[in-house]
């Protein structure tokens, strides 16, 4: 069983003053992995400048644009065709001994190997008062704990676009109890890491055909590392395990490592950016 | 050579040259006005207005009474004033700073000394009794710099770019000075029967370009509008003439672009074209419509500058 998606990403940047020089880097190409296959992709910009591809510091493919002319406005269009395989996320057996399972997290080698995804980052730091907001139950397996964390976050926060932005600290989100997928994911990562479970931020596309929460932009969810199983995707915004509706682009420690569009623009004055994402399911077999 | 550094060197040359012409303009106009033959040319207001006109900051309102100390300080030593001599020297030094790995220690040290001299010049001394000393020092120090440029740098691209800057600026400044003095001569005519073509201002103009003595030697006559303009614009042997400046620019751009191919889009082509145009001009054509000549030449110089920027200084 598989599902084919056609994804359209577009961004439009408008600048108050003429831009002399600019570099953009897009991190929007779906990755090829066990559960998904990138069939084809296209990219174009309104100035008809040539784009390049490169690999960023974390090994993900990026698209780069460096216009050879001055401009006030530029728009980008990308389209991807992805085949997503139907994978059963529960296709493993839970360990019998939950104490032994949890003890794996205390192993030094484990902590060293997964250090990047256990560290506190700018977006995954909690102040002292919140560090025990969700303690793990060591009588349960890691997977069960993570699953309850996923559920707990989805209940604790309500999905509310427009009240937070990329720079809202986690403490404010906990206090206000609302946010968007990014905030859900950062909280997930922070609490999983707090309980010694490696967790990473995932950026990608969500097919919203099933009434899932998200908006017309890129989606974010998390992956947690379950010893003896591997990385598993959790979508705390929708209280789900990542499934065929989730098309992954990349992962990182937090949003900073995954931001879909990075730009260096040499121009004074204000600018506006409008992004939009459409995910269409082409066919089902 | 890096395009940015080339741009800095070009501007270093321009700022050095600019400060010299400004300083000399202040000096010559102020001191020759003290015993000028007609009343208007002797008037302090007239001289101060001429100075502001030359630096491109003309006071349009005839009723304004200019303050001598303020005007002199503004043009020479005002940190806040973008075109002041002190800022020109500061920019020249900053440009030299960014390229100091390419220029000689001797040149750098001379620029640095020049900067510290101006920086430490007391404003009150300058406006009360230092005008002569200050302006003479500026012109002499720029002469030292030109000597160091010629005498201590490798005559390669670096040298060519600095010389292009110096000569582009010289052409610009000479045309500005001509413009200012032409303007003064127009205003001053009539008083005491002083005619435009025999105005006292032509001698001043020649002195502003350090060309008075040689002009006298060449023509053996009192300067008139025609002879002065011919000497300063068309005489290729007068080092300060427009013609010589254009010839120098052309010579140095050839170092950067030695191509012999016909390329009408290159800067060298444009400079060559402008240069040949003046090489075969009658001074009478120019004198009959000086205003038009000045505007055209300024426009052409801007075009050359823009082209240079695109071709060599694009970073």
């Amino acid at each position: 069983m598989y599902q084919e998606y056609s994804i359209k990403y577009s961004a439009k940047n408008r600048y108050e003053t003429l831009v002399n020089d600019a570099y953009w880097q897009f991190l929007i190409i779906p990755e090829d992995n066990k559960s998904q296959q990138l069939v084809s992709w296209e990219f174009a910009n309104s100035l008809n400048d040539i784009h390049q591809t490169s690999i960023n510091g974390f090994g993900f493919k990026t698209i780069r644009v460096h216009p050879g002319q001055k401009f006030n406005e530029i728009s980008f269009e990308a389209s991807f065709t992805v085949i997503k395989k139907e994978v059963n996320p529960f296709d493993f057996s839970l360990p019998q001994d939950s104490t032994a399972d949890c003890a794996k997290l205390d192993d030094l080698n484990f902590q060293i190997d997964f250090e990047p995804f256990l560290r506190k980052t700018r977006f995954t730091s909690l102040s002292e008062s919140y560090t025990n907001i969700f303690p793990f139950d060591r009588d349960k397996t890691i997977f069960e704990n993570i699953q309850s964390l996923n559920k707990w976050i989805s209940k604790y926060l309500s999905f509310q676009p427009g009240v937070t932005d990329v720079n809202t600290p986690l403490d404010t989100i906990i206090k206000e109890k609302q946010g968007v997928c990014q905030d859900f994911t950062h909280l997930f990562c922070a609490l999983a890491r707090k309980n010694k479970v490696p967790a990473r931020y995932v950026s990608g596309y969500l097919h919203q055909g099933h009434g899932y929460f998200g908006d017309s932009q890129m989606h974010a969810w998390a992956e947690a590392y379950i010893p003896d199983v591997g990385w598993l995707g959790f979508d705390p915004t929708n209280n789900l395990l990542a499934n065929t509706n989730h098309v992954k682009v990349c992962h990182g420690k937090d949003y900073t490592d995954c931001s879909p569009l990075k730009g260096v623009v040499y121009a004074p004055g204000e600018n506006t950016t409008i992004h939009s994402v459409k995910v269409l399911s082409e066919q089902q077999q | 050579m890096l395009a940015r550094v080339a741009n800095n060197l070009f501007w270093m040359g321009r700022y050095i040259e600019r400060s010299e012409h400004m300083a000399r303009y202040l000096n010559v106009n102020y001191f020759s006005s003290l015993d000028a033959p007609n009343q208007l040319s002797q008037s302090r207001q007239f001289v101060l207005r001429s100075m502001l006109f030359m630096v491109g900051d003309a006071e349009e309102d005839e009723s304004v009474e200019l303050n001598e100390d303020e005007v002199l300080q503004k043009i020479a030593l005002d940190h806040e004033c973008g075109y002041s001599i002190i800022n020109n020297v500061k920019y020249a030094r900053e440009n030299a700073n960014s390229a100091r790995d390419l220029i000689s220690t001797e040149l750098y040290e001379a620029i640095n000394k020049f900067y510290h001299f101006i920086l430490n010049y007391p404003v009150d001394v300058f406006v009360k009794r230092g005008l002569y000393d200050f302006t003479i020092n500026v012109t002499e120090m720029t002469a030292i710099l030109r000597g160091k440029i010629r005498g201590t740098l490798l005559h390669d691209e670096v040298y060519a770019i600095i010389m292009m800057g110096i000569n582009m600026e010289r052409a610009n400044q000479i045309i500005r000075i001509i413009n200012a003095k032409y303007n003064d001569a127009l205003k001053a005519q009539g008083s005491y029967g002083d005619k435009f073509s025999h105005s006292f201002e032509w001698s001043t103009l020649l002195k502003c370009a350090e060309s008075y003595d040689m002009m006298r030697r060449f023509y053996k006559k009192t300067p008139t509008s025609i002879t002065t303009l011919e000497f300063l614009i068309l005489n290729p042997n007068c080092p300060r003439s427009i013609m010589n400046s254009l010839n120098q620019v052309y010579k140095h751009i050839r170092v950067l672009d030695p191509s012999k191919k016909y390329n009408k889009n290159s800067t060298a082509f444009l400079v060559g074209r402008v240069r040949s145009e003046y090489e075969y001009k009658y001074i009478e054509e120019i004198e009959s419509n000086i205003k038009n000549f000045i505007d055209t030449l300024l426009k052409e110089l801007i075009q050359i500058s823009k082209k240079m920027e695109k071709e060599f200084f694009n970073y």
Partner: protein
Amino acid sequence: MVRSVENRYIKGKENSMDNLENQIFASYQRNPDLFDEIFDENGVVKDVYKTLFNLYGGHSIQDYVRLNEKAKSSFFNQGITFQVYGEKDAKEKIFPFDLFPRIIDTAEWDIIERGSIQRSRALNLFLWDIYHDKKILKQGIVPLELVSSSDNYLHQMMNVNPPGGIYNHISGTDVIKHTDGNYYVLEDNIRCPSGVSYVICNRTALKRALFGVFNHYQTHTVTNYAENLLDLLETVKPKGIDIPNTVVITPGMYNSAFYEHSYLAKTMGVELVEGRDLFVENDFVYMKTIQGPERVDVIYRRIDDLFIDPLEFRPDSALGVPGLFAAYKKGNVTLANAPGTGVADDKAVYTYMPEIIKYYLDEEPIIKNVHTYHCSRPDELKYVLEHISELVIKPVDEAGGYGISIGNRLSKEEVEEVKKQVAQNPRKYVAQPIMSLSVHPTYIDENESFEQRHIDLRTFTVLGKDREFVLKGGLTRVALKKGNLIVNSSQGGGSKDTWVLKD
């Protein structure tokens, strides 16, 4: 004028060879508790300094006043200046230069040179390990915390093999001599250590002022730094390049070390570029020249890690080059020092240097480490809080001598304030016993006399592929304020020419 000074030397030499009561040291006050580099505990001039002492003794203090003025204006006219941070009107200052040189004999230098190389090598192996197998962490020799809490531990560098296997191509090791007569390392600087240009300028300045003194000593040259640096950088060029195009990248002319950047570019004969002079296309780096783009293969960077590429690290960096890191990772350009090197330039890593040297080289440290208390360890934190007046408290991540508190100089209120800060953020601080830096006669401008002042020494080590180079000289920094132990230029320090004697 210089010639007449030279004549005086000869005269001075004849007249006062055995006369130690020389005039310029008449007012020299020797504190017997401090280690004086030129006088022994009985006040007798040490052998190696004897000739110099007599030569200098042939001068009157007025000669020094004049020579000193000349040296100062020479630095100023040459534009060998720097700007101090934190002042409203950042003024240009010269780095004060002292006319009395420091001499290091062959035996002592041997220790310093071998010790500097040993540390640079060990740090390089440490960096390779923490970006690859992480054995030293897994074996529990260095705590994971040490790297995981550092912003300079760049995950982008994980499993990246820098060309030639070198991370810290250029290191600056700060050493001092304690009252016990032994050298100790205070710091390893492997981000963008600066100061090497002053070593050469000081030598030039001393030669100009008093060239006669060089006739009496066999001193190693210091002017070969740039050529060695360039040679060694070329050993780590990208694959497939015959003659690499090397550049120095600077944050720009307003940077306090700009003079040094331009000096190095000039003496290496390479371009000095800023970020905006470079661009990346298809993962290759080019510079914008008047003849169009030209490929760049090796970059000696004087920009901190996090600023080199706004697309990969700090997005607000206007100093870097968009796309540079990807080009580096692809092996198309060499960066020196390698990105991610900063993690080992940390006062907390310093404290593990004996363990690091032992682990990778199976050697004991040739130059000692100052014992360090980690405030992150509860028992050591307790000791530090109880003994603050006997310790120097240092923040682990500040450079340039900022934020250092010296326990016995603090008022009661200040002690409480420091205690509070340390207790609030123990990971941020380490503490060390107050080391007494050795002292050296130094000409003090305002008193017009020679006085004892504390000194240290920064050595410069360059690592290449299978080769290394230590500049035989180094920068002796002097704390010009009486009793002051902080020698950084930003904190009112000066410097001396440093002579390493040949056998």
